């Protein structure tokens, strides 16, 4: 895999004063109360915080899966938080990769088809002309995550670690500027988790993809370039020492 060095000086992901509250019955449950962050190219950032602190909520806002109540999200300098559902989906298909705790592969598709899914969605009708090249690229990516022999295997035939590797390949197949990972090692044992994490970070570095990775695990956080902590709906300044979550 040839590393693609970031050339743009515009940070791929910027968030300003993000606020989000959920309606619970009559009342409102504020989860985020003004979160701002900048993710530079190729940067690997861990997002920590107690359970229920809003890590997933923040990732969803940054990934355009949900809209903030206030604040803005800029992707490559372009404001994207007010996009409609369709436009947001198009942005996700090309520029954002997701990795989830539960792997979230489609059970009817084999590993290769799962990896190609974002490409098909991104390319639309163009897909039929680019099919060969795209398939070859996805195949190389699966080889890079060590699953070159398992292309035609359905998710049910793969172990958890293998499924998560397929998911990582799927998240990177569009060469997105940003990869959002929500506890990607949460469902794996320590050893496998470590392997998968190393793979994820290596590949992201190689692709020049900025990663925001929510985790409870300080060891995972340690492997990243920088750590952000969520507490009381705000990002705690990096120098403030917050006790690691038990």
């Amino acid at each position, binding site marked *: 895999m040839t590393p693609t060095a970031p050339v743009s000086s515009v940070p791929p992901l910027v968030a300003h004063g993000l606020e989000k509250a959920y309606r619970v019955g009559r009342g409102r449950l504020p989860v985020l109360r003004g979160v701002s962050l900048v993710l530079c190219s190729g940067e690997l950032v861990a997002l920590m915080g107690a359970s229920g602190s809003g890590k997933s909520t923040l990732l969803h806002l940054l990934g355009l899966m*949900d809209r903030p109540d206030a604040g803005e999200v800029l992707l490559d300098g372009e404001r994207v938080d007010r996009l409609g*559902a369709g436009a947001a*989906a198009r942005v996700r298909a090309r520029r954002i990769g997701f990795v*989830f705790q539960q792997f*979230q592969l489609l059970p*009817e598709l084999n590993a290769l088809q799962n990896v190609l899914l*974002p490409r098909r*969605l991104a390319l639309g009708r163009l897909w039929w002309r680019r099919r060969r090249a795209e398939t070859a690229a996805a195949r190389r990516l699966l080889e890079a995550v060590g699953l070159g022999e398992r292309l035609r295997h359905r998710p049910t035939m793969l172990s958890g670690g293998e499924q998560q590797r397929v998911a990582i390949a*799927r998240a990177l197949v569009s060469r997105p500027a940003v990869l959002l990972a929500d506890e990607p090692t949460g469902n794996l044992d320590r050893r496998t988790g470590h392997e998968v994490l190393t793979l994820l970070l290596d590949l992201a570095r190689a692709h020049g993809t900025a990663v925001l990775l929510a985790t409870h695990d300080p060891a995972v956080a340690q492997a990243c370039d920088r750590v952000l902590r969520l507490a009381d709906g705000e990002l705690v300044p990096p120098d403030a020492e917050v006790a690691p979550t038990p």
Partner: protein
Amino acid sequence: MSRLVLAWLFRRPVQALAILGVAVGLAALLLVQAVMNGLIETNEAAVRAFSGDLHLVPAVGETPPRWDDYAAALADVAEVEAAAPHLVAHALSSFPGWTMELSQTGYSDAQQVRLVGVDPEAEARVNRFGEALARAEVAPVADPSRPFAVPPGPFARPGLLVSDDFARGVPLAQGEDLHGGKKVELAALPWRLPPPGERLVPVNGVFTIAGTYAPLDFRTALDVVFLERTGPNGLHWNLLGSEAADFTEALLKLAPGVSAEAGKAAVLEALSRAGLPRPGGAAGGELVTWRERNATFLQAIHTERRMTTLVLSFVVLVAAFGLFAVLAALVREKVRDLGVLAACGAGPWTRGGLVFGLGALASALGAALGFGVARWLVAEKDAVAAFLDRRFGIQIFPAQLYVVDGLPAVWNGGGAVRLALATFLLGLLFTLMPALRAARTDPVEALRYE
């Protein structure tokens, strides 16, 4: 994506069943339509064959109508190919020497018959009279060109033809058969009824059964007796007398390509040119097309077809609803996958389109399958009918009950395509809701769903 559609389409057997349900409903609808079309067609053909193209009842003026005048008037009308006069009268029948004597009309089994005097060769030219003779079962006539001929002898009486069914009820002495000159006595009402209070004297005469005919038509089921119309052996001479008209109706066959309406106009004009009273005017009579004459009967089958179509359309509707239920369940079950698709870049249109494509495919499969099965069954209808009869003893239209041979089924391609298309569109309509649901799935909640 197409892989995903296929995988989701046949995810559960119940989904294939839903498609099959649509197919079966549509096939039933198309089959019943084809059979009804066939019934309509055979019935129309039968009705037309027996009633000619035009039915003329002459207006009765000062003097009773004479067929010669009408025949002359119609002779040079190009639109009329052939004309057959009928002299119709009503009578009671009995068998001389048997217990039922016509002198005692109180016998409840003295049978009332409709006497139809015909000119055999003219008759054969306008309708299926010849076929009715040829297909007789009990006592077919020896020479169809002279159907009323009876064996000569000192006791020979004018010949008549009864239906096979009538003949089966004729009481026969030991050793006697219908070819031996079986006599039947007829008592007809006089041509004109006397004024109230005066004595009514029926006219009776004895005839010989010359043979039988097969009733091909509901109008000649049991009680129509054919005689010669005129001449020394005719109905006119033997029972009605010279005072009577020598015909009461005529069946006209039109030249090929002439519409019933055009023929009707030409006949009316020819009659008025010949100075004959206009049928349907003040002096009574009528001139109607075969369709008008049998309107009630024909209308009944059309109504029946509409009813069955309506009922079976509901079957299709219910089947399409099954498709809806299955798709709705699929969307519910696949909510998490829809969330994954959303995360990978599938917008509302893509997600809705996926489910809609699924429903469209299912509807198209169901409609195509139903159409194909119905088409095939109609094409192979005789084989199917034979198979059902041989294997299960089922006769769809028992020959004795319906006046049809085999299984009438007429494939109306245009109508069938329209119905298949309507079924497909109905399926699409029922797909809209699940598709909308898939489109409106909130990705975040969908991913949380477990």
